[in-house]
């Protein structure tokens, strides 16, 4: 297409047809003020402040919505333009309260900046127009309609970026405002408190409530959100060594949206409950100690155990919340100093099955794709996942793909998840029957000849085994098992197979089931059958939880994988690390998270290090885990808070939070990004990497590092696909097949289809425990809650009792109604909860949102012996419900 040429402020410029005057002007370094315009939002052309004059015909044009045309002679600052601009602004200010001096938006207010620029004086009065402030209970954001200029940035942000649609215009003329449905307070609306509207509001009409600091903030440090594995970039605004505000980061690729945890949940770092000095056990309690003493005690105890009982009696449970550098160090320390492979990280609690599934199919424990690829998909299957609560940025991406990109969405889940509203098809399989559904979909795709035959022939293995396993398989049996009609199954299979770019997003509902490994493989079967894999816009995303779940695995903080997703039992891989570390590595298969606890119970493991995890609260049957950990000869805990696990320790070392150290996190899409030190650690806290280095030295086995930078150097040397900071570790594209450019791990073999075994009839219902209880992620809570529950704002918004959601028919049968207090009883424990009737749950299924730390949901679950079974044990259990006379104040 031919470029359009015109002049702007006497300068000849040209741009592609369709470009707006504003875009071209900005590209050419000419500033035009704007208010309602925002690069990420659809054009509105409402405020007219961006007005420019076309001197060719004297027209005044809103530059943000007017396309360039040949021959235009644009003047962006003619006297006429300036006069109009001033008038527009004066009109806005006329209905604006004169409270700029005390407005918390301060210098960030674009209205005020503009007034200064155009030389319009503000009448400096300090009256606050209280009347317009909407009284709301939420601790996150506050609305003041009197400062609203109706630019609709909030409305568009909410509808287009996070696609929640909590706000829209309400009313006409002078009475117009941005309102929620029924003009309800935000807490009773669809609002998720993501803070995007606050970040985009140009005035003080939308602001964070209870700001920790009033006024303009001097410095901002770019970092990464410490909560979930979406890996949002955040900007930590610092004043007087405190993080006073968190705003969306400046990462160019990132849409300016976070979720409530990123926007408002980072206040845990200044919690008064932070540990600040090393503690050594003394009787039932702890005494404060110097670092030197605490490290010496720990080193001696660990050395003693290794000497007397052997290295295999030691274990290290590390954290998916620690940095890559730290995880790398943890595993190197465990393998070369403790000399055992008994190491794991918290993400294995739900992800172990998926790692095995991936490993067996593609040869790597994980596969990643850029999150942005979702926008390219034309069909998305979301199965066993509720990204709205567990991975908000993925949720926004899916919503945008559907509403803006026109993608079709199939949601498969027994529950009504947050994405149900957007789904074109909703399949609700009976709990635990996904495998039957996936097997049936594969059968339909093959039966109807919808496979990508060339892809299968050239790039996969084991197709025959899959075909054989499907012989005699009947669609009707799958329909009967799942409760989904054969027609619906066929329809879903066709949609996926005939899509141009089909994406699959799966979550804990798939990974955490008894046959989780097979379920993951069954999903991979579908992708391999249709070629929707390693293809832009087509791929499989596993929703990980913690901010560095991906990185912890990539760094080899797994019992049977070395750094770089390398198999521990693969001799060439092992040799490379042995050469670098100048030692021989232990080869005995390591114990993973679940086995460690069982081994501790049996007395096989005698000493443990737990860094940044809280197994005593997070593992099933917590009482048993507590006993096991309490019975160790020595337990060393590194943490920022006094968790249940820390309470059992012999030595506790106070760690630095993410805002107090350097390092990198790898998001679920494989992007490796830096966190940066924004404030000093409180008290004597030290970063985990430093603590482990000092511990290694105290054990007379110093490791050759003194900074995260040096550790990163070694990571880059040994893991090719981590060579580039900010790089995307992804396996897409054909290059992968020929082991291509450096950053992509070479494929050792072609991915293999998996024969999916026969479907077992569902277990006979146990009349004593007639209900299936599902654990559910919630937006305001992360992991076992050690951080989110200590975030003043997040914790205030979580109810102080725990809820159990129940189908209305079930409730009626038990003569219960919303608000009643009940006891939930499983074979392993009991929990008090408040009933909340929920029309969307199937009968016989209860759903319990994970919430505060004092509601140990895990107590209900039974503890498995096997590693793969661990994750399933934390998702689902059988319970009965009894009316309780209790006051519902929490766990019994």
């Amino acid at each position, binding site marked *: 297409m031919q470029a359009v040429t015109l002049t702007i402020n006497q300068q000849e410029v040209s741009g592609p047809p369709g470009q707006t005057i504003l875009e071209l002007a900005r590209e050419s370094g000419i500033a035009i003020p704007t208010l309602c315009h925002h690069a990420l939002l659809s054009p509105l052309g409402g405020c007219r402040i961006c007005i420019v004059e076309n001197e060719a015909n004297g027209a005044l044009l809103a530059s943000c919505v007017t396309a360039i045309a040949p021959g235009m002679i644009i003047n962006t600052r003619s006297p006429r333009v300036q006069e109009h601009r001033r008038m527009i602004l004066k009109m806005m200010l006329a209905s604006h309260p004169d409270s700029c001096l005390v407005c918390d938006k301060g210098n960030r207010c674009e209205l005020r900046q503009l007034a200064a620029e155009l030389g319009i004086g503000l009448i400096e009065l300090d009256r606050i127009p209280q009347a317009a402030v909407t009284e709301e209970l939420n601790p996150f954001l506050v609305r003041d309609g009197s400062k609203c200029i109706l630019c609709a940035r909030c409305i568009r942000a909410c509808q287009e970026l996070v696609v929640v649609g909590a706000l*829209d215009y309400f*009313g*006409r003329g002078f009475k117009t405002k941005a*309102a929620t*449905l029924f003009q309800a307070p935000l807490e009773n609306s*669809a609002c998720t408190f993501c803070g995007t509207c606050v970040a985009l509001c140009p005035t003080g009409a939308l602001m964070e409530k209870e700001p920790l600091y009033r006024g303009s903030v001097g410095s901002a440090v770019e970092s990464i959100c410490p909560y979930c594995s979406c890996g949002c970039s955040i900007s930590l605004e610092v004043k007087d060594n405190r993080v006073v505000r968190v705003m969306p980061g400046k990462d160019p690729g990132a849409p300016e949206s976070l979720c409530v945890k990123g926007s408002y949940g980072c206040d845990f770092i200044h919690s008064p409950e932070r540990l600040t000095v090393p503690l050594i056990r003394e009787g039932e309690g702890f005494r404060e100690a110097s670092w030197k003493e605490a490290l010496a005690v720990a080193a001696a105890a660990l050395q003693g155990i290794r000497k007397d009982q052997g290295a295999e009696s030691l274990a290290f449970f590390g954290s998916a919340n620690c940095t890559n550098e730290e995880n790398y160090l943890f595993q190197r320390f465990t393998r070369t100093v403790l000399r055992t492979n008994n190491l794991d990280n918290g993400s294995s609690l739900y992800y172990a099955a998926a790692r095995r599934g991936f490993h067996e199919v593609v040869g790597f424990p994980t596969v990643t794709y850029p999150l942005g690829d979702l926008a390219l998909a034309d069909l998305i299957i979301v199965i066993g996942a509720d990204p709205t609560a567990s991975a908000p940025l993925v949720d926004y991406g899916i919503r945008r793909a559907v509403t803006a990109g026109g993608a079709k969405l199939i949601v498969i889940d027994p529950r009504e998840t947050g994405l149900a509203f*957007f789904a074109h098809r909703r399949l609700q399989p009976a709990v635990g029957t996904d495998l039957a559904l996936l097997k049936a979909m594969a059968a339909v795709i093959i039966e109807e000849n919808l496979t990508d035959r060339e892809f299968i022939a050239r790039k996969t293995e084991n197709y025959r085994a899959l075909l054989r396993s499907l012989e005699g398989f009947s669609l009707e049996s799958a329909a009967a098992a799942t409760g989904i009609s054969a027609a619906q199954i066929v329809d879903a299979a066709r949609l996926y197979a005939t899509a141009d770019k089909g994406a699959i997003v799966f979550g804990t509902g798939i990974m955490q089931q008894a046959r989780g490994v097979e379920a993951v493989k069954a999903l991979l079967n579908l992708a391999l059958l249709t070629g929707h894999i390693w293809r832009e816009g087509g791929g499989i995303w596993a929703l990980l939880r913690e901010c560095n779940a991906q990185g912890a695995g990539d760094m080899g903080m797994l019992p049977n994988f070395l750094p770089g997703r390398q198999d521990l039992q693969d001799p060439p891989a092992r040799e490379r690390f042995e050469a670098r570390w100048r030692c021989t590595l232990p080869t005995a298969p390591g114990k993973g998270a679940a086995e460690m606890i069982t081994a501790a119970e049996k007395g096989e493991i005698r000493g443990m290090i737990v860094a940044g995890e809280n197994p005593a609260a997070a593992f099933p049957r917590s009482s048993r885990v507590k006993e096991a950990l309490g019975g160790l000869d020595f337990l060393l805990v590194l943490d920022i808070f006094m968790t249940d696990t820390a309470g059992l320790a012999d030595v506790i070392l106070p760690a630095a939070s993410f805002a107090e150290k350097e390092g990198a996190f790898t998001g679920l899409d494989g992007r490796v990004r830096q966190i940066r030190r924004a404030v000093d650690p409180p008290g004597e806290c030290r970063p985990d990497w430093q603590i482990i280095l000092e511990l290694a030295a105290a054990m007379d086995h110093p490791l050759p590092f003194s900074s995260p930078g040096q550790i990163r150097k070694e990571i880059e040397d040994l893991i090719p696909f981590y060579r580039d900071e900010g790089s995307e570790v992804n396996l897409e594209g054909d290059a992968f097949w020929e082991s291509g450019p450096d950053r992509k791990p070479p494929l050792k073999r072609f991915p293999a289809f998996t024969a999916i075994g026969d479907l077992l009839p569902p277990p006979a219902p146990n009349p004593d425990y007639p209900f299936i209880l599902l654990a559910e992620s919630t937006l305001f809570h992360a992991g076992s809650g050690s951080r989110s529950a200590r975030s003043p704002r997040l914790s205030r918004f979580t109810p102080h009792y725990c809820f159990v959601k129940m189908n209305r028919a079930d409730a009626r049968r038990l003569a219960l109604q919303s608000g009643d207090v009940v006891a939930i009883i499983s074979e392993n424990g009991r929990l008090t909860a408040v009933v909340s009737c929920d029309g969307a749950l199937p009968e016989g299924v209860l759903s319990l949102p994970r919430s505060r730390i004092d509601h140990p949901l895990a107590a209900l679950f039974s503890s498995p012996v096997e590693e793969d079974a661990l994750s399933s044990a934390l998702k689902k259990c059988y319970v009965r419900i009894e009316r309780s006379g209790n006051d519902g104040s929490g766990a019994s």
Partner: protein
Amino acid sequence: MDREHHEMSRSRLEEIIEEHCRRGRWALIPLIQEIQEENGYIDPAVIPVIAEKLKIFPSAVQGVISFYAQLYTEPRGRNTIRLCRGTACHVRGGKTILKLIKERLDIEEGETTADLEYTLETVACLGVCALAPSMMINQQVFGRMNPKKVGQILKRKGEDHEPA
């Protein structure tokens, strides 16, 4: 149609929506109009149902309804009084007439009587300034209003005005 009936059944609502859905999301306004025609007003409770069916955010459906003065989210009286507040009527005592009507019906401007007989509105000028002060009930104009006429014109329950 039974004009007393202000509660629309869920199934009837869904029927109307189904008919319109075939025309895509831009059918929103005709859809809302039809609901209002049939029901007399748009019960806010139907907003989420419409939103779900048309896949439009409920807040956006509400935004559209709130934009048009002719769309009502509250029940309307069987009869609409439109009292003139134009200049001519004002100087000839229109304000007193308004006060009297408000007192008699025990409602404010924009409100509807509890028995759903009357909705009271004011308008800028009815265009019959010669008859000031004036008002309309449904389609019928009443000119040269005085306090006595207010009592005579506002009917007791059961008596009908000329229909709207």
